[in-house]
C-alpha cells in the first residue's frame, strides 16, 4: 500500500512502540489525535516533552519529581521519623493512593537480584543507611514486592539496619478484599494468618 500520509503512519508507528498498544489501537489513537483540536494535540505533545525535560529523581528519596527535593520530602506535615522503602518510583504512587501513610519514602531503584546484575551497589541502599543515621528515623517500613527478590531485599535491609537499632517492619500480607476465602492460595492464607490481629 502507498503511504499516502507519512506523518500519520509515523505517528502510528511511534504509538505502536508503547506497551499494550497493538497496531489497531495505535491506528485508532492516531486518527483520534488527527481529528482532535489543535490545542489538545499541542497539549499532548508538550506533556510528552515536559516529562522528559522536567521530571528527575529527588536527591533525597529518589522518587520522581520536578522540584528537588520532592513535595513529599518538603512537606513538614509528614512524619519525618517514619520511612517507607519501596523498589520503584511507581510504588510510591501505589502507597500514596492508599492515603494511609503519613511518613516519607525511600526508593531503592530496583530490587536486589545478582542474577540480573543488580547488586547492593546498584541500588540506593547506602543513601538509606545514611538517612536512617542523619534523619533520626524511628521506623523503616519495607514495602518491597511480595516476590522472591522483594523478600530477599527486605530481609537484607533488616539485617543491614539491625546495628542502627531502628525498628524495621515489613508490610503484612493480606487477603484480597472481595475475594473468596476458599479460593485464596495457601501462601496468601498462611501469611495472612501470621499477620493476623486482635479484633
Amino acid at each position: 500500500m502507498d503511504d499516502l500520509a507519512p506523518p500519520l503512519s509515523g505517528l502510528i508507528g511511534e504509538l505502536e512502540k508503547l506497551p499494550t498498544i497493538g497496531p489497531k489501537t495505535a491506528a485508532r489513537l492516531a486518527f483520534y489525535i488527527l481529528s482532535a483540536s489543535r490545542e489538545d494535540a499541542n497539549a499532548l505533545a508538550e506533556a510528552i516533552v515536559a516529562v522528559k525535560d522536567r521530571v528527575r529523581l529527588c536527591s533525597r528519596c529518589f522518587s520522581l519529581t520536578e522540584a528537588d527535593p520532592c513535595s513529599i520530602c518538603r512537606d513538614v506535615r509528614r512524619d519525618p521519623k517514619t520511612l517507607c522503602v519501596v523498589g520503584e518510583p511507581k510504588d510510591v504512587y501505589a502507597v500514596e493512593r492508599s492515603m494511609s501513610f503519613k511518613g516519607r519514602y525511600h526508593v531503592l531503584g530496583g530490587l536486589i537480584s545478582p542474577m540480573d546484575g543488580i547488586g547492593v551497589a546498584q541500588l540506593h541502599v547506602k543513601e538509606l543507611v545514611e538517612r536512617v543515621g542523619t534523619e533520626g528515623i524511628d521506623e523503616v517500613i519495607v514495602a518491597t514486592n511480595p516476590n522472591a527478590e522483594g523478600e530477599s531485599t527486605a530481609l537484607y535491609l533488616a539485617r543491614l539496619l539491625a546495628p542502627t537499632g531502628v525498628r524495621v517492619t515489613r508490610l503484612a500480607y493480606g487477603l484480597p478484599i472481595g475475594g473468596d476465602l476458599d479460593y485464596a492460595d495457601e501462601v496468601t492464607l498462611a501469611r495472612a494468618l501470621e499477620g493476623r490481629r486482635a479484633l
Partner: protein
Amino acid sequence: MRVLSLELDQFRNYAALRFTPPSGACVFIGDNAQGKSNLLEALALLATGKSFRAAREADLIRDDAPAASVSARVATRHGEIQAACIVARAGEGARKRFFRNGRAVPYGQFLGGVMAVTFIPLDLQLVIGPAGLRRRLLNAGLAQTSRAYYRDLAAYGAVVTQKNALLRASGAPDRDLLLTYNEQMAISGGRIASARAVYVRKLASEATAAHARWVGASPEFDVAYRPSPALAEETPEAIEQALRAALEANQTLEIKRRSALYGPHRDDLALSLGGLPLARFGSQGQQRTAVLALKAAEYASLHAAAGEPPILLLDDVLSELDRERRHAFLSSLGDFDQAFITSTDVPDMPATLRGEVVRVRAGSLAIENAAHA
C-alpha cells in the same frame, strides 16, 4: 484415578485432539516422531505442571500458534475434576496458566489434583546417572503430594540461583547479602530435607520389598538419604540449625569456590545391593532391576499418599526391558486404574493387563484393537 477425556489444542503436533482413553492400559504405537510422547507429555503437564522434556516451554506450542491448551476430565476418589493448562507465548518464552474446574488457580494449588508417575528412558540412568536424577525422583513424588514442599522447593531454588550469581559476580560478595541468602536457604532447606528424609524412608521400604519379590531377599537392595550437609536429626528445626551452621562454617570456602556447596540442592541417594554401592559394583542387570524397584516404589508411595492408584505414564521404556523384567515390573504395580504406554510396536505385556492399542500417525489417533483379549 482415571482420565475420562483429553483435549489438546495447538499442543506440539496436535491441532485439535479430542480423545476418550480406555481404562486399564492404553498403548500408543506408531513410527517415530508421530506424536506418541507428546501425548504423555501433555498428561504429565496436568499432573506436575511441567514438561518432562521441554527445556523451553514455548516449544510446547504448535508451530506459530499463540497458545497451546491441554485439558482433561479426571475421575478421582473425591469425584470428577477438570484440570487444564494453557501455555501462551510471552516475549521470547512462554507463560503458563492453570485451571481447576474452569477457575484459574495458582500453580501451588493446581498440584495434587491429577497424580501421575512418569517413567521415561532418562530414568533408566537413576543408578549410574548424576545426582540430579535422584533428586528429581524425590521432587516428583513430594511435590505432587505436598504443596508446602513445592512452595519451599521453588523458594529455595530461587535463593540458590541468586546466591550462585552473587558468588560468581566480580569483586568480593556483600557479606550481609550472602548471610541473608544463607538464612533463607536454612529455613526452606530445613523443611525440604526433613520432608525428603521421611519420604526416602517410605520409598526405601517399598523399593526393598519390590526388589525382594523379584529376586529374593538376599542380597538386599537398600536406599538411603544422603543429605547435604550430613544430618543427625530429622526435624525441620534441627536441620535448619545444622544447615545454618554448615553454611557459616563454609562461608570462606564457598566464596573461594564461587559456588553454593551445601544444602538440599546437593542432596543424593545412596543405592546399594548387599551393602555395596550399586553404581560401582552392580552389574548392568542389577542396576536395571534397582531402577525398576525405585519406580515401583514411587508408584506405591504415591498410591498410598493419594489413597488411589495414580496414572502411570511409560514413555518408550518397556522396549528397553527384557521380557522377565517387564512382566515383573508391570505385575508388581498391581491394580492400576490407567496406564499410558508408548512403544513403536505392540509390547508383550502380562495377560492380566487389559487395554487398547491406539495408533498414532502425524498427530491423529486411531483405535486399532484390544491389546489383550
